[in-house]
């Protein structure tokens, strides 16, 4: 559920980019941040290691604008992808209203994608979020590599029916906006005042 501040008449949604290490979560976020008008975005915070890998999370707030007397904001987060940061990933998922799962299209990362997705579902259950109904969008990133994982392969392995799927090359911005647009729409459609 989003946070509604009746005092300031603000509604804040939380969107989380999830996925294995180096799949392109931060790249997605940085591209969106770059493309948004200045008045719509806050400063982007990147907490990374010396090797440019996300340590805790990346974050920026995005102002949607005033709707029906409420200022509506999306707080955008990424999680760290490395397996040993599972505790951080779980914490960041807490209170999320929607998830963009960024999968790496490299066939060598197929198992890592599946493992992270399954762990995400476990984490959702621990917060009493139903993975079947929770807004999740699947993005197959790095589609410019040779012999990428075929579309549908992850859904088949994970038993996902009807999940919205997008192809992307986040370093070039391809597919990034389509993915976030769909995820935001799903979050709004599910919202109940």
């Amino acid at each position, binding site marked *: 559920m989003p946070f509604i501040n009746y*005092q300031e008449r603000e509604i804040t949604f939380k969107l989380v980019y999830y996925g294995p290490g180096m799949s392109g979560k931060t790249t997605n976020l940085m591209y969106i941040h770059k493309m948004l008008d200045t008045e719509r975005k806050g*400063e982007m915070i990147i907490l990374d290691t010396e090797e440019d890998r996300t340590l805790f999370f990346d974050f920026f707030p995005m102002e949607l604008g005033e709707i029906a007397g409420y200022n*509506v904001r999306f707080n955008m987060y990424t999680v760290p992808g490395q397996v040993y940061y599972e505790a951080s990933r779980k914490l960041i998922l*807490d209170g999320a209203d929607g998830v963009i799962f960024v999968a790496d299209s490299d066939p060598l990362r197929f198992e890592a994608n599946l493992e992270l997705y399954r762990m995400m579902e476990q984490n959702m259950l621990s917060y009493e979020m139903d993975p079947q109904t929770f807004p999740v969008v699947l993005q197959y990133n790095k589609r410019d590599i040779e012999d990428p994982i075929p579309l549908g392969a992850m859904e088949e392995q994970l038993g996902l029916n009807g999940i919205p799927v997008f192809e992307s090359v986040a370093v070039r911005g391809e597919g990034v906006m389509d993915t976030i*647009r769909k995820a935001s729409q799903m979050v*709004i459609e599910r*919202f109940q*005042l």
Partner: protein
Amino acid sequence: MTEKVKSETREILSKLVNNSGAMTAILITKQGSIVADAGETSYLNITAMAALVAGMFSATREVARMVGENEFSILLQQGKQRHIHISLITDEIMMVIVFEDYNRIGQVRHEARKCGELLTASLAPSQEDVSSAKDVSEPQFKEYALNLIDRIFQG
């Protein structure tokens, strides 16, 4: 939240800032959203601060659990010139106090504890809040929001 409660919350926070000699007091949710603030905030990016403090608090809660505690109700970060005192107000809301004179830590703690009780009562959403939210037409809200999203995230 009614205007009355709104000003009450601000008043409680402002009193805390005055009585403790702190620079800033901010109420944030565990998810990292700002509820209210008082004192000087122009030197701070409070949105980012809220997200970071919420993350820090969550991480510390997990550490607490590892050593057999449910959570640590107070976090204190001591710097050279500025310090941060973070305390849980309700299950969902925490208060961040930024202060400069470390000798005032006792006063900060005392005021934080005192304000905690007042804020707990003040922050409970009233029936009026809920009815006021219900006044917003949900289909209309969704339609506007979806249009905005289409415009903002053009490919």
